[in-house]
């Protein structure tokens, strides 16, 4: 058909214009397809990451956080009553007494378990939740922060050196009282050496001025006699004062450098699962990606989160030694983000024993009998267990943060706008190019009118060319979009989603809060609808551009064209 051939000739012989238009439309369509694909990929990733509770058959989780008083839920039971004091008590085992790990120089491996700020409570108390109306099922779990420590017990030596100090003490002696003087005089007289027998040259000297020891004798023979009498008669207070002085108090202090040690600490989280209730709890068989779920009996079995297994090079069948007890890894799991997650899972009773926390749990999973009861059950639990923190699926989802959420928010907020902007830009470019082309083809289109082409035929020709370019642009755009989706899938850009459970207490630092991360590879899945949308967009772009050009061509009067010919 002549008109189709004319379109083909125009497209093939005006290559630059055609390529520009097709490339513009193609790029626009490819971007729209890619953005749509990314948006779908993010939606899928979000559904995986932000729907944490449905996978574990749970509507609500009940925990016990730190409170300012120690009343209410958990009070009086093992683990304390919810005050900061209880946080310290619950987490005492983390304070490492190095001497208990062995003798200095010995190699040690030990795992410490602590509940952090998600405090424990007796399982008997947690079990009361199941009796509330509207509760279809409930299960308890124990989620602990674990510190795996390995190294050599260090030797601590402190050396002190004392002595070599000189003390000088000055003391003023209290003069003899009259009674003491009298007693002294009497004693001296008794021993034949009185103050009255003083030598001649001393006569007339007032008696009262004869001081202590003042009765010096006449001549050397009497002096020796007097000294002996004086020594004998001297007051006991004056004879013994030399032995009663006190030395000043002194404190010795020395700073000790901490011992050098090679102790390596690896933190991880560990969860105790009530394996007798596989339909609800910390972990259900749905999360097992490899291997199997716990046996009902709950032996020395462990399930390990895929990401932790990858880091620690663990696989199904590996052994896990925890403080002398060997567990066998029976499966790998992919726990839902944002919920109560751990790196390692053990049967509840095994973990209680291992952590020396018998009969306690720190999370209750609750399933309501119907979705409309969730809100009522939440209120009832909060009323029954005062101070309990009750979280719904939405609360948990809201805690998820990270690049996944940022990207998802971005696409939700900007995705559609971006698509519209890109499509509009592509349409605009195609329209401008078509208008420009029509502008350059005034002579040609005027000639067509001169040789009898009706206005409808001329417009149809311009629109046909434009729509054909749109179809080509659509094909190119779809191709580019598919290639972009494949590249995105192959490159697998990762997005992270994080969720923190348990509060970060000043007492324990950030380690008390458990933060779970999930890394998701981003894909841009394409659907037939998206591809069809791309094609429709391109054709619509061509139509819009053609209509714009066609309108201009329609307004063209043959005489004007002829005048331009002149």
């Amino acid at each position, binding site marked *: 058909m*002549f008109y189709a051939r004319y379109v083909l000739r125009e497209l093939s012989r005006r290559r630059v214009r055609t390529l520009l238009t097709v490339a513009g439309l193609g790029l626009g369509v490819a971007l729209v397809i890619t953005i749509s694909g990314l948006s779908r990929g993010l939606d899928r990733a979000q559904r995986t990451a932000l729907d944490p509770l449905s996978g574990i058959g749970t509507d609500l989780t009940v925990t016990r956080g730190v409170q300012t008083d120690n009343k209410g839920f958990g009070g009086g039971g093992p683990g304390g009553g919810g005050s900061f004091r209880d946080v310290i008590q619950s987490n005492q085992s983390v304070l490492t007494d190095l001497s208990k790990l062995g003798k200095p120089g010995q190699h040690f491996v030990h795992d410490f378990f602590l509940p952090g700020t998600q405090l424990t409570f007796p399982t008997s108390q947690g079990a009361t939740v199941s009796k509330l109306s509207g509760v279809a099922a409930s299960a308890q779990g124990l989620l602990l922060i674990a510190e795996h420590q390995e190294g050599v017990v260090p030797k601590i030596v402190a050396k002190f050196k004392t002595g070599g100090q000189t003390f000088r003490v000055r003391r003023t002696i209290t003069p003899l009282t009259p009674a003491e003087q009298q007693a002294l005089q009497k004693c001296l007289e008794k021993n034949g050496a009185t103050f009255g027998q003083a030598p001649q040259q001393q006569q007339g000297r007032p008696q009262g001025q004869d001081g202590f020891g003042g009765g010096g004798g006449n001549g050397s023979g009497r002096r020796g006699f007097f000294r002996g009498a004086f020594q004998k008669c001297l007051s006991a207070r004056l004879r013994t004062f030399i032995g009663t002085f006190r030395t000043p108090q002194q404190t010795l202090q020395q700073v000790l450098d901490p011992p050098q040690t090679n102790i390596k600490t690896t933190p991880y989280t560990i969860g105790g699962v009530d394996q007798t209730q596989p339909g609800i709890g910390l972990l259900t068989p749905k999360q097992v990606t490899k291997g199997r779920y716990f046996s009902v009996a709950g032996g020395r079995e462990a399930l390990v989160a895929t990401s932790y297994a990858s880091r620690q090079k663990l696989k199904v069948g590996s052994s896990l030694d925890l403080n002398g007890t060997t567990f066998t890894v029976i499966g790998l799991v992919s726990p839902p983000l944002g919920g109560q997650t751990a790196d390692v899972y053990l049967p509840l009773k095994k973990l209680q024993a291992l952590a020396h926390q018998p009969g306690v749990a720190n999370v209750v999973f609750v399933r309501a009998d119907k979705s409309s009861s969730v809100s009522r059950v939440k209120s009832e639990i909060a009323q029954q267990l005062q101070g309990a923190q009750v979280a719904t699926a939405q609360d948990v989802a809201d805690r998820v943060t990270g690049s996944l959420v940022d990207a998802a928010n971005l696409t939700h907020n900007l995705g559609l706008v971006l698509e519209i902007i890109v499509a509009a830009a592509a349409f605009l470019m195609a329209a401008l190019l078509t208008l420009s082309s029509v502008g350059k083809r005034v002579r040609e289109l005027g000639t067509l*009118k001169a040789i009898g*082409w*009706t206005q409808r035929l001329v417009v149809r020709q311009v629109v046909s060319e434009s729509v054909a370019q749109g179809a080509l642009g659509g094909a190119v755009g779809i191709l580019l979009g598919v290639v972009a989706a494949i590249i995105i899938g192959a490159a697998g850009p990762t997005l992270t989603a994080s969720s923190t459970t348990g509060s970060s207490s000043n007492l324990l630092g950030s380690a008390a809060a458990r933060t779970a991360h999930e890394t998701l590879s981003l894909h841009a899945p394409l659907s037939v609808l998206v591809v069809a949308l791309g094609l429709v967009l391109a054709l619509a772009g061509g139509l819009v551009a053609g209509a714009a050009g066609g309108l201009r061509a329609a307004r063209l009067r043959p005489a004007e064209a002829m005048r331009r010919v002149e």
Partner: protein
Amino acid sequence: MNEPLFELEGVSRFYRRGESIVRAVDGIDLTIGAGEFVALEGPSGSGKTTLLQLLGTLDRPDAGTIVFEGRPLHTLDDRALAGLRLNAFGFVFQQFNLIPTLTALENVQAALAPHGVRGHALDERAGALLEEVGLAARVDHLPTHLSGGEQQRVAIARALANEPRVILADEPTGNLDTKTGADVIDLLAGLGERHGTTIVVATHDATLAARAPRRVAMRDGAVVQPEMAV
């Protein structure tokens, strides 16, 4: 004179150029009979092309009436005028005005296609027309690969495609050398004779105009005596 084909009475066409008004065609009374070969002669700006456009319904007069085959053209709408151009007129332009992306054959087909001619018939008819103007060997060439004379021959073949009753040629030899120009005029004259087509040629070349049986001289938009046209 044969039966009148065109009857012009007081036909005027003005253009506004800035503040002034240019009277491109100014009150022309003219009658052209069917089958005539008429040369519109005059210098550039004398109004030849404007008159040709008015005759060919590419433009409408500001004053006066043009009657074609007994029908006043001012009573016809754009669609009817397009039909008239398709069925009754054939145009030949000074710059050939071929579609640059189409071959010689396809350029002729462009005038045949609106008639509903399709497929093999379309190829055959276009080929026959090109053969008639002596371009049988150049059918697949693009206009850029043809000489000026060849391009004008293609334009003439295109003008003949709908078997028009009138061929309106505006300076058909303007871009051609003297010999080729003379050949083109001969071709037009021959075709007119063979097909009984009325031919109106606008030219500023008095020598070429002299080859036409009837000369209409123009100056400043009006018809004048031939000796006054120069």
